[in-house]
């Protein structure tokens, strides 16, 4: 059964040794959320080169995609997005009252699935970078 309790300010990271799986899921979800919202603003800024014309846009994207560091960052972005999506679906289920008692197991499953999808995607993301 679900039980609410006064946990104080949730960002009290000094207590990290006491964190349960649910708390780690919350921390990772928050971290990946900050990364994704930061990326959203960066993404639109880069895509906005389309406003300067076809050559500026194509040149910018192809220059960026030619950098190995950008390809590696894209793999990182994929990992962040996949975890945020999987853990978000897990949160939706929990909010609907499904799987609250096994939330630690579903968190570990989210982590494993994120790792598997990310590793499997590396060849596609790195293709043509060398």
């Amino acid at each position, binding site marked *: 059964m679900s039980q609410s309790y006064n946990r104080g300010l949730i960002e009290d990271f000094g207590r990290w040794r006491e964190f349960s799986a649910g708390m780690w899921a919350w921390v990772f979800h928050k971290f990946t959320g900050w990364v994704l919202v930061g990326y959203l603003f960066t993404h639109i800024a880069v895509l*906005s080169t389309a406003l300067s014309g076809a050559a500026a846009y*194509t040149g910018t994207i192809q220059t960026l995609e030619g950098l190995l560091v950008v390809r590696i960052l894209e793999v990182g972005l994929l990992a962040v997005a996949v975890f945020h999506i999987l853990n978000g679906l897990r949160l939706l289920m929990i909010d609907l009252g499904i799987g609250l008692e096994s939330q630690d197991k579903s968190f570990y499953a989210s982590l494993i699935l994120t790792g598997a999808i990310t590793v499997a995607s590396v060849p596609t993301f790195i293709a043509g970078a060398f």
Partner: protein
Amino acid sequence: MAERYSSFRPGGRRWLWQRITAAFLAVVLSFHFFLLHFVYHADEVTFALSSARMESWTYYSLMILFLITATFHGVNGVYNALINQGLTGTKQTIVKWTLVVASAILIVQGVRTANAWAGISIL
């Protein structure tokens, strides 16, 4: 014992809209990644290819809705995380309106970019 961790007050409007946009984004963000990295490849991107996709009204509408929901979901998430951190009073009001303005700029810029690809010259 199971505990519920969230930055949101359950049952509130901000919580509800965060969940509704999350359900939409889980599908559309997955589609976006799959289309632009697995069907097409990032290093093959050109203006002409982006234009060809954006000239389809279905794709254009989906991307505009994607932009609006992603902006709302991201900014609402940041706002609630800051409230959960203890943000109140005047600071909360300043942060709220800063986020609203940043969101509006992001959406306008995103729509202008989509219009450039689609060949629409109204904004």
